[in-house]
């Protein structure tokens, strides 16, 4: 498979009161065409900022300070604003965590999907609306004609997320970035939305970058996974490989802390300590203060992401040096 998106040594920083936060600190990640790649990590690990950096949708106090994002043969980091605007929503779409607030409350959902289409294709209002109804049908909304004339507040959370997906896919993008698409939904709806995304991916042939903190979602959806910690990717592998033999102590800790049915446990495993203060990340490996192994050199130097075992399994930890 050819690579659709290749992130090279991406750095994104934010200027906040009290200093500079290195939210993304040298991320390398490749998304093959038509693949589903998971990006996991806890809150504040930089996964959403990575996504926003790809889209160049960072707030004014932040910016990309280094690296490249190759989309086909174009570097999105260096692209002029107008060209980037053309790519957004057309070649790369994004869906957000909160379906309740991500739709404009004063327009009907049909209008909003039609707008997404008309931003990138020279079609009339009616053609846009027809496409909207077609998309609503594709995302499994019954009576799409009537729903297209309704306002967001008249739809339930699950339906709104379907509308968001319809909007994001209406231009058949090559890459869909889904930032915690199911976090705000209840479990049954979550399963339906994930199933829908899987089905539509087959239909539209889009690659998906799925950002989540839910390893269950990853196991269900992704071909490969990257685990992020404090702005860096610490481990990357195919989904089976990562779940079968996690190599980084952080990944091991994450997997061990998932409660399992049918297994008696006195107490759930927890990773000791907490995420480092983003304004004062310790030197060396950022995970060291919480690490059970504390390999030599990890107090001084940051470990690089290197192949370990197979060429596809990458891990950044000194214990394997």
């Amino acid at each position, binding site marked *: 498979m050819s690579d659709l998106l290749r992130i090279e040594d991406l750095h994104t920083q934010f200027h906040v009161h009290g200093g500079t936060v290195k939210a993304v600190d040298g991320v390398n990640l490749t998304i093959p065409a038509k693949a589903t790649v998971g990006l996991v990590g806890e809150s504040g690990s930089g996964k959403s900022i990575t996504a926003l950096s790809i889209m160049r949708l960072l707030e004014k106090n932040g910016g990309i300070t280094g690296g490249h994002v190759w989309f086909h043969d174009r570097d999105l980091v260096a692209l002029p604003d107008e060209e980037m605007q053309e790519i957004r929503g057309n070649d790369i779409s994004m869906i*957000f965590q909160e379906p309740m607030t991500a739709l404009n409350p004063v327009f009907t959902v049909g209008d909003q999907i039609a707008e997404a289409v008309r931003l990138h294709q020279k079609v009339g209002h009616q053609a846009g609306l027809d496409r909207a109804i077609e998309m609503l049908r594709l995302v499994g909304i019954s009576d799409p004609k009537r729903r297209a004339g309704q306002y967001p507040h*008249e739809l339930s959370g699950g339906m709104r997320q379907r509308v968001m997906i319809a909007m994001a896919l209406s231009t058949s993008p090559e890459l869909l970035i889904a930032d915690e698409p199911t976090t705000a939904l209840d479990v049954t709806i979550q399963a339906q939305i994930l199933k829908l995304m899987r089905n539509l991916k087959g239909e539209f042939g889009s690659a998906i970058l799925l950002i989540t903190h839910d390893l269950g979602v990853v196991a269900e959806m992704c071909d490969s996974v990257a685990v992020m910690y404090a702005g860096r990717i610490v481990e990357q592998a195919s989904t089976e490989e990562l779940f079968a033999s996690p190599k980084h102590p952080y990944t091991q800790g994450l997997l061990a802390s998932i409660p399992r049915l049918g297994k008696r446990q006195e107490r759930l495993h927890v990773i000791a300590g907490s995420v480092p203060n983003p304004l004062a990340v310790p030197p060396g490996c950022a995970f060291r203060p919480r690490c059970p192994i504390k390999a030599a050199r990890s107090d001084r130097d940051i470990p690089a992401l290197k192949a370990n075992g197979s060429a596809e399994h990458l891990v950044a930890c000194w214990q394997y040096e």
Partner: protein
Amino acid sequence: MAQVPPLPFGPAAGGLPGAVPDHLSVETTVDQERAIAQPGVKADELAGAPELGFWRLAVIRFLHHRVATGALLILGVIVLAAVVVPVITGNLYSIQDYRHPYKAPFQSLQHILGTDDLGRDELARLLRGARVSLMVGILAVVGYLIIGGGLGALAGYYGGWLDNALMRFTDIIISMPFLLVVIAVTAATGGVRLSTVIIVIAATGWFEIGRLMRAQFLVLREQEFVQAARALGASNTRIIIRHILPNALAPIIVSATLGVSGIILLEAALGFLGYSIPPPEPSWGNMLQNFEEYLLSDHTYLVIFPATALVITALAINLVGDGIRDALDPRQR
């Protein structure tokens, strides 16, 4: 809106108690969720309500507000009379009848509200004056919306140094002594003119709407749907006009409505001081000019009529504004 029947108690109608209802296993719609929340009420009984958009619901809420609806009717009559009647009566307002000055009101059909010191028909003058008041009120508010709305939107959306610069500029405008500006501009442009009044009011009074608009944009630009629109490839201009502006309008409409009455009173005050439209053209303000003289004479009506017209119009506009406020934001009540 659909009436919600009282909830039946006891076992829910339809479905055995304890059984998992099948609507939980499929995608739930709002109708179904309502059905779950209110067992016994069929979804289609409620289905009539949700098809309405924000603005149509607001109109319905406004019409339920009796005082505001009444005020709107009165205002409608005033506007209609001010627009239509002077067209029919032509220059009646300026025809002087020296044989019948100070004719008392309600005495003859020819001059229902009597005549003034020069024998001009008081009713014709009142309605002609209404035109001036309403025109100044509406045009100056349009000025407020263009200047204040535009600058406020830019300041709130872009923030940073632009916001700082525009807000300091607003501070300067706020500290301008309005009357002195009117007098200075009138002197500089060589005479009292209605256009001067409109421009000066618009140029010095827009700051309230400007600040309101800025506040709205500051809040709305952080909303997720704005970021979603950006992620879809919408330009800044498109986001400002299509995505943020419609969401920001509600308080702006209220403020603009209340602004009209404020401007009408301001114009009357200027007219009273002789700085609005020059005679023989009547305005409610300059009809009050000989206030003291008339109030203590037998011709009190020459003060009472324009003053009443002024108060009723301003009050009606304010009540309509309050009605709109309640209709657009029911939480504020």
